[in-house]
């Protein structure tokens, strides 16, 4: 038996399983062991070892009969936003305390059907609202990376911070995430992992607790681009239960990873060169462009003129949808209900339940959303934001029509920051984390972040490749070329 099986990538483990070098039970036990010792990371908030072992044994049987689907026997973690049948799911919120769904989200069902082994549920910002994992009812997850020579705890990013921390710390081979404004890509960049936000409609949203329906997408968070290709293939697919799910065949993403990007045109959007951008990020970005050029791609400057409106548009539209999506958490049917005083009526029940059940960031967004949708403000905020969203989308359509195959941009404005560092900051400071990622959600495009370097303090930095709609394969191939050229192999030193 190999050592430290939990450190394998999906592809390595898959191949080892197929060769019979390891069993899924061994892999799963290795991950469960790693999880046991990872309390300090606070990544797993609900462990499901029984389910894991049961599925691992079933996977081993399938492997023996030669009937092994794409993810057969591979142990993964699931973001707490996904409903998984019979397993508590709280979306990181107090208001869903005690909630155990009686249904399985389409994406986790697809993964289960592909033979994946679920290890447990992963920490996240409450209702996926946050960029640092600090809004979670479970307390924040912790980034396994530390600045060199510094014990300060860093954020794994958010909202899929638990997923990113778990993958980076080898607690699982891969994890699911969801991305509404950058919630997969930002934490992936903060933890030196690969995260994919697929084209809107590629993965079903059914059974995933909604944050902002027109922006939410599930995606894989993995140790390599190849792993993301494998896992995305298993997660994706048309779902009649989600009206916004695309009725398109899922290509063989892994098969498209040739690393050959000769003749491809990669756009560098000039509007992403923000004022005050750290030199390190700027260098990372131009190095990335050089790598792609060296691999045979044509690098062109492009303009996405409405980029500067993306963040404000996002912070109107996402809270608007969220304020409506959160209305169902009212204490009537499931989850938390406040203790009522004698004489309290239904309004008191709503007010007390929601005041106790929702954290501050969720309350803030519910209030922003309610405000921008209210009579008299609807046109000035919500409707205008919708119109600008169309313009942002058109920006991308224009450059793609001009022959650009993919776009290269930074993933985040900085490396992982310290937990608590932003505590007293203006909330807008936190929102700025999404500046490079929200455009992709607004335009419904696929995006992937790939670690390509370390900053001066030894923390990973990532670049983002944005693809044409439904061209995740081509996008991943560009990311694959970048990954190969960057040769990023650093791992966090184990301290937990």
């Amino acid at each position: 038996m190999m050592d430290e099986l939990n450190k394998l990538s999906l592809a390595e483990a898959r191949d080892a399983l197929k060769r019979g070098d390891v069993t899924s039970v061994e892999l799963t036990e290795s991950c469960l062991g790693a999880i046991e010792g990872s309390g300090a990371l606070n990544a797993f908030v609900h462990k499901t070892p029984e389910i894991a072992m049961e599925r691992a044994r079933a996977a081993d049987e399938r492997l023996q009969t030669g009937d092994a689907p794409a993810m057969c026997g591979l142990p993964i973690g699931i973001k707490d936003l996904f409903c998984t049948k019979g397993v508590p799911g709280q979306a990181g919120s107090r208001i869903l305390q005690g909630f155990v769904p009686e249904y399985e989200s389409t994406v986790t069902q697809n993964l289960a059907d592909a033979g994946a082994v679920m290890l447990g549920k992963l920490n996240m910002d409450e209702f996926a609202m946050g960029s640092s994992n600090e809004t979670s009812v479970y307390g924040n997850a912790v980034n396994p990376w530390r600045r060199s020579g510094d014990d300060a705890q860093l954020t794994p990013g958010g909202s899929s911070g638990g997923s990113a921390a778990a993958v980076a710390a080898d607690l699982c081979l891969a994890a699911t995430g969801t991305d509404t404004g950058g919630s997969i890509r930002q934490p992936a960049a903060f933890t030196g992992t690969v995260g994919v936000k697929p084209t809107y409609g590629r993965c079903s949203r059914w059974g995933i607790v909604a944050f902002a329906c027109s922006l939410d997408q599930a995606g894989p968070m993995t140790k390599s681009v190849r792993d993301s290709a494998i896992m995305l293939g298993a997660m994706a697919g048309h779902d009649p239960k989600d009206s916004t799910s695309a009725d398109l065949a899922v290509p063989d993403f892994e098969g498209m990873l040739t690393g050959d990007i000769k003749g491809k045109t990669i756009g560098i959007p000039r509007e992403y060169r923000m004022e005050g951008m750290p030199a390190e990020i700027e260098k990372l970005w131009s190095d990335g462009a050089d790598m792609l050029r060296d691999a045979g791609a044509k690098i062109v400057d492009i303009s996405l003129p409405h980029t500067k409106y993306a963040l404000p548009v996002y912070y109107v539209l996402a809270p608007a949808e969220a304020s409506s999506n959160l209305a169902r958490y009212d204490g009537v049917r499931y989850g938390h209900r406040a203790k009522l005083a004698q004489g309290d009526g239904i309004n008191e029940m709503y007010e007390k339940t929601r005041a106790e059940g929702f954290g501050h960031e969720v309350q803030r967004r519910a209030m922003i959303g309610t405000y921008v949708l209210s009579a008299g403000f609807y046109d000035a905020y919500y409707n205008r934001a919708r119109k600008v969203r169309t313009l942002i989308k058109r920006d991308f359509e224009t450059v793609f029509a001009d022959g650009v195959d993919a776009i290269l941009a930074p993933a985040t404005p900085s490396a992982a920051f310290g937990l608590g560092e932003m505590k007293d900051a203006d909330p807008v400071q936190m929102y700025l984390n999404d500046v490079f990622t929200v455009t992709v959600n607004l335009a419904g495009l696929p995006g992937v972040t790939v670690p390509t370097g370390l900053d001066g303090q030894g923390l990973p930095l990532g670049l983002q490749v944005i693809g044409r709609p439904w061209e995740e394969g081509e996008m991943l191939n560009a990311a694959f070329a970048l990954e190969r050229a960057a040769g990023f192999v650093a791992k966090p030193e184990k301290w937990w």
Partner: protein
Amino acid sequence: MLDLTYEAPKPKTIAGAKHDWELVIGLEVHAQISSKAKLFSGASTEFGAEPNSNVSFIDAAMPGMLPVINEYCVEQAVRTGLGLNAQINLWSAFDRKNYFYPDLPQGYQISQLYHPIVGEGEVLVDIAPGVARLVRIERIHIEQDAGKSIHDMDPNMSFVDLNRTGVALMEIVSRPDIRGPEEAAAFVTKLRQIMRYLGTCDGNMQSGSLRADVNLSICRPGAYEKYQETQDFSHLGTRCEIKNMNSMRFIQQAIEVEARRQIAIVEAGGEVEQETRLFDPDKGETRSMRSKEEAHDYRYFPDPDLLPLELEQAWVDEIKASLPELPDAKKARFMGDYGLTEYDASVLTADVESAAYFEAVAKGRDGKMAANWVINELFGRLRKESHPIAESPVSPAQLGGIIDLIQKGDISGKIAKDLFEIVYTDGGDPAQIVVDRGMKQVTDTGAIEAAVDKIIAENPAQVAKAKDNPRLAGWFVGQVMKATGGKANPKVVNQLVSQKLAE
């Protein structure tokens, strides 16, 4: 087909203490789409099921659940739109109407505010023969129904039944073209009739399949005409909305009392406040539910879980081609083809089953006679026992058989009524019954003549009177009929009696 022309009815006038007032009414009718499954979930819509038994995860708004449109419901809304001669919008979209209430699990109702599936149409509302009001339809949209809150089962708790939650409704919105309580009820009746013809709504008001909100304002005579010319609402009074009435009677009562309330306010120098009111049938009054200030801000916005509804013209055309003959056309055809009066044609076309029954009877027979028998004898008899036409013990073939026997002269009209009663209660073939029971009428002139002679001979005093007053001939006819057990052919008897009396 006859091209019928109608006069518009006079608007209802209510005399106030100072002036006469007219009413201006617009209705919002909520019609439950006849569908086995709910609008966005697969759950059943069966009425009267155990509380909370027809509830899917979607209806209960469990986390992560998503709506998927029920295509059948869309088709029914399109059918309804076509039945009301309305514009079908090939592009429509769903919006969320946000408000908190325990019987609304999502915290929003999925509806269509900005882009309804059906646009402008019109309905001809029959008031009386030759009199009808053309009411414009502003729009029809599809939306989810809410559940039911139950407040009277426990002193300290309220209960919620989600069986209705998510059931598909059509909201049919009229223009303010209705001018009185009777017209309002007639409008709802006509809508119900058309939807029942179309099969898109069962129209059952008791089970809540059909409910109406009334928008009502009052104005001085002449003001409405100015509104009509300009479509400028400032000519009309401030309107109040009376919510959720589930009977024709309540609709009329509510309009009546609300109009009087508004008149009293205005005549006392006050102003009507725009607000939502509820009708209390027990107290016979409307009560304020919420004022304009308290009005909900529903924060409507496009539902991001649903794609816009895009219909193909060919699909709409297919539905159009499959529409049944609708009440107005059927009525005109009955008048034209069978020579019926508008009244009779209206009665017979009130519902599809009656019309079909009539046509089966009338086929190859005299239409007017068939109409008389269906309306007077059959409907009269069915009404006595509250039987719907579908449960008629007399089939069209049987009733047709009875009519045939009259036409052939085998039985008289009077005997036919006895025969009808026998067929109604015992069943059987009318012709056979007539033979078996010896009901065939006597047309043998000799036998009848003998009977007439006998009566005349026995009643010389009456004969003398009848010579002066020919109307007394009826008495002799009656006596002859009595003597022949009603089987004598009345025509022949009449003829012979007048002949003999004249001798």
